[in-house]
């Protein structure tokens, strides 16, 4: 809609620096960081009960995702702090593997998560939270200047962030019935989808699903396996040194032949198999009917019963998402040990929604077609609370930087999982809701959860998302780590003093003196275990700090190897490409390469190398062309 038209027919309700459409995990981070960076910010939610809502599983973190949460924290985001406030079970996954893939995951109290996040937003002085349905963008000369609401009001702003989640064009499927609807029984945002298409944003359909919720009292836990959290809780936020909390258990059970028979008999009734759904679903969240159909030889599938919170009896049945009719759902659940008398309070459903092809976005998450319009979360084709929050944070930071006429924050693939996530989305695109995995990162050893702040807090400070106070604390921590590392490197122990100790622990005896660091490189040695022979007084360090030191020491060789690769890659990332370059004018590029380059418009040679269909020879041609242009310019 044009501003002139708005002025004639709508009521102007305010002018802001930044407007965020949607207050899910992406929108909350975007809104908060914009406010904290000094912007007058307006955060819309179609329903204020949906602020920071967790419409799917009641958990945060896990492999890759837990890394994202740490990175969000290191850059000044809220997710980790809010998670620490509201979790009810905490677990460090992958402890049997190396530290690069240790991953924190918690069970969250959904209601508390929503309440606490809403409180933080309400208390953020520059952020206003409003309940309204945004139905249109106001566009002037290819740039967004505001939004229109359903009640014929409009708000103006310098930048707008879209984080519409599954609300946009939302459609619910349960069995053979389907209707327009948002997540969790909320209203969808239908009009906005039409408006965005009119604005020239091509939308596509993705799909996701969620299992049923049941009442805990209807389940028999005696027939299930108890899953407890860790005894020693590791906080998500670097700002919390320790946390103590009473935890609640989850429960494990399995499907069986009877379950599978019920599902097989009714499989044609599933919305997924009846052909009603056109959206593309993620491969990593198949429904139970999908699992049974695709993995025919698997005679059981596991499911976890997870509490939705402390103030509710509702539990989430993880592993059992389905779009079968309710009666079928009930009968197959009842075949599962412990679920015989299950009382379902919310049926499983599939939801289809509109989202953008992320190739339409710049690396800053700004739309290529509409200036000052930033996009984040499921709207960009991702999936997951953490992926959404990470993009929200970056979109928020970059909207602020755009308004201030500063270069955007673009994290590299060797800087952060956030960098991997965004680069994958905007460079390679995605054909299904995108989930982060540690295997998507080339430099997994560098991108650990223990060192997220070392990697990112300095960058956050430079780009304005990390406060002075937080930064100073970080510097102190960095110094403590450096000092302790130095001490371990320079403290030598004599064979006579420790050989007995070593042999006792099955370690090889020494011939010469050795530094504590060298000793720690032995797989069987830990920081705790060498305390006995570490004569000096040890500094009082937090868990995060010790972990960083130990990982640095133990994996130094491998880490350095990856660092060398990064140096090479970074050189390619430093060679800038003009975003307005028309690749059709470069002779020597293959047709496929020309098309792909014109679509993605990479900002560096490094990014260009990652586009599928661009060969090393194309890159050579491109580099020769750039050199030619450079010399011509002179």
């Amino acid at each position, binding site marked *: 809609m044009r501003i002139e038209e708005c002025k004639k027919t709508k009521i102007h309700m305010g002018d802001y620096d930044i407007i965020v459409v949607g207050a899910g995990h992406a929108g909350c981070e975007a809104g908060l960081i914009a406010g904290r960076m000094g912007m007058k910010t307006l955060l819309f939610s179609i329903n204020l009960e949906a602020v920071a809502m967790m419409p*799917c*599983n009641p958990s945060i973190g*896990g*492999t*890759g995702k837990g890394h994202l949460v740490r990175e969000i924290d290191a850059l000044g985001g809220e997710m980790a702090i809010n998670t620490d406030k509201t979790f009810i079970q905490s677990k460090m*996954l*992958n402890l*049997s*593997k*190396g*530290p*690069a*893939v240790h*991953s924190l995951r918690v069970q969250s109290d959904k209601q508390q998560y929503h309440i606490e996040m809403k409180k933080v937003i309400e208390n953020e002085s520059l952020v206003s939270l409003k309940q309204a349905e945004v139905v249109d963008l106001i566009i002037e000369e290819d740039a967004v200047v505001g939004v229109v609401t359903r009640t014929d009001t409009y708000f103006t702003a310098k930048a707008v962030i879209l984080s519409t989640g599954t609300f946009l064009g939302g459609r619910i499927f349960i069995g053979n019935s389907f209707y327009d609807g948002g997540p969790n029984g909320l209203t969808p945002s239908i009009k906005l989808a039409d408006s965005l298409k009119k604005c020239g944003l091509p939308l596509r359909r993705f799909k996701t699903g969620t*299992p049923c919720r049941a009442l805990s009292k209807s389940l028999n836990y005696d027939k299930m396996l108890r899953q407890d959290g860790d005894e020693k809780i590791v906080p998500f936020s670097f700002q919390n040194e320790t946390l103590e909390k009473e935890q609640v258990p989850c429960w494990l059970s*399995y499907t069986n032949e009877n379950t599978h028979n019920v599902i097989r008999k009714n499989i044609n009734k599933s919305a997924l198999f009846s052909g009603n759904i056109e959206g593309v679903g*993620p*491969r*990593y*969240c*198949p429904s139970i009917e999908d*699992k049974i159909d*695709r*993995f025919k030889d*698997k005679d*059981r*599938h*596991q499911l*976890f019963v997870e509490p939705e919170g402390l103030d509710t009896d509702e539990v989430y049945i*993880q*592993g059992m*998402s389905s779009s079968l009719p309710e009666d079928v759902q009930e009968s197959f659940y009842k075949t599962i040990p412990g679920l015989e008398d299950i009382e379902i309070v919310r049926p499983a459903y599939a939801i289809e929604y509109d989202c953008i092809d992320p190739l339409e976005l710049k690396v800053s998450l700004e739309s290529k077609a509409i200036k000052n319009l930033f996009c984040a979360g499921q709207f960009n084709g991702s999936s997951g609370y953490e992926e959404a929050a990470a993009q929200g944070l970056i979109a928020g930071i970059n909207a602020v930087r755009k308004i201030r006429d500063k270069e955007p924050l673009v994290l590299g693939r060797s800087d952060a999982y956030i960098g991997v996530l965004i680069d994958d989305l905007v460079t390679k695109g995605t054909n299904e809701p995108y989930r982060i*995995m*540690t*295997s*998507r990162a080339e430099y*997994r*050893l560098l991108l650990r959860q223990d060192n997220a702040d070392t990697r990112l807090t300095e960058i956050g400070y430079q780009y304005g998302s990390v406060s002075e106070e937080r930064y100073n604390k970080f510097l102190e921590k960095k110094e403590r780590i450096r000092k302790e590392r130095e001490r371990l490197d320079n403290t030598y122990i004599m064979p006579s003093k420790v050989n007995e100790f070593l042999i006792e622990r099955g370690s090889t005896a020494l011939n010469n003196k050795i530094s504590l660091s060298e000793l720690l490189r032995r*797989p069987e040695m830990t920081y705790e275990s060498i305390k006995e022979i570490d004569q000096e007084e040890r500094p009082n360090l937090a868990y995060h700090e010790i972990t960083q030191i130990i990982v640095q020491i133990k*994996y130094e060789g*491998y880490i350095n190897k*990856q660092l060398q690769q990064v140096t*090479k890659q970074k050189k390619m990332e430093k060679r800038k490409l003009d975003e307005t370059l028309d690749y059709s004018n470069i*002779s*020597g590029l293959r047709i496929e390469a020309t098309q792909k380059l014109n679509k993605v418009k990479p900002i560096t040679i490094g990014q260009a190398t990652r586009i*599928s269909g661009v*060969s*090393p*020879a194309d890159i*050579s*041609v491109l*580099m*020769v*062309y750039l*050199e*030619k242009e450079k*010399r*011509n310019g002179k």
Partner: protein
Amino acid sequence: MEDTIAAISTALGEGGIGIVRISGQESFDILNKIFVRENSKNEFIDRHMYYGNIVNPENMETIDEVLSVYMKAPNTYTCEDVVEINCHGSIISQKRILDLVLNSGARLAEPGEFTKRAFLNGRLDLSQAEAVIDLIKAKTDKGFNVAINHLQGGFSSVVAEIREELLNVLAQITVNIDYPDEDIEQVLYKEIEKKLKEVNIEIKELIDSAEIGRIFNEGIRVAIVGKPNVGKSSLMNSILGENRVIVTSVPGTTRDTIEESVNIGGIPIILTDTAGIRKSENEIEKHGIERSKEKFNNADLGILVLDSSRMLDEEDVNIIEKINDRKVLIVINKIDLELKLEEKHVKNMIPEAKIIRTSMKDMSGLKDVKKAIEEMFLGGKIKQQESHTVNNSRHKDLLIKAKLSIDDGTELIKKNEALEIVEIDINNAYKLLGEILGETIEDDIIDRVFSTFCLGK
């Protein structure tokens, strides 16, 4: 800094001297590792030529006596440190030196890469930019054809199989790391170790067969073509005679074309007997004929065999038209029979081709055929396509690096290192093998994870 690259920079088979060129920071170090001068220390003065031997540091075997020159940056062709090793002109010698250089830390140069570096480093003037692009493009196109050629052979299917095995290991590791909560067995180090051992034996077999030329047969590619029953196979057998060196039995080349390697006057020749080219409705035969055409298109020289006892017919003309732009030697066979073929017609159709009359019955003319091949090669009329050698060296280089990577991974497993660290080396080997096949699909592993394992909430 840029990595160090190397390549044979003289056209193969043309002169008595070959030059292996190295460019980049490590050039000088590499030279020092493999170049041994008699009775003097290894002191080099910039731009001076030194006499010595190229010696494999691993077994102290002397590979060739050479002249080496070291040129310091920036006043060199690429504006980087450059080393040039002048060796004997034989393909074997140049290749072995190149292999050694690659094993000592260099990477095989991409097509046109020396010139590209020269331009990017400001050495060439602006007017040459287009020429540089054309060079990269032309060389890549040519190399690409050869890569396709390889892909159709047994070599690539073996590499693909090995890669597939690594992919399964990687998928298992990935699912263990990224889905620790799922109901999926943890991969055991013993099993990975066993798999890696198997894989490495297979890679080693490929490398070994490369050494004796079974798969990477080096030499001039000569294809014998002609319609059926003109005596192609007899000609091939006669040329091979007692000179037969190795019989290749590359799986996948199938019954319809036969490849053999032979040495004529010191020139290694790969001789291909193609299926008779003629019009066919039969599916299997069509396939064979397609292969013949392909072989012929990739050959450096074609020998067209005609039957002197039959009139030139439509089938002959068809073949002549297809091969018109190739280097061709015409053999008119069966001269012991009644002459019906008019040589004039043939001459008119391919005026520049040399015609030799033979009879395989009494071997007459056979010497002339061999001599003609030798002359054409030495006279520079035909030369081996550079891209054959480039690809072969590249593939061998990649195989060796993949094997080393798996060795490293195996060591880590023995040391009981963390799974994600072991994964790095296996993944690296997987990528190296992918480069041989020219595949760049990165989502392979994740695709495999989702297709193999049942995951999800």
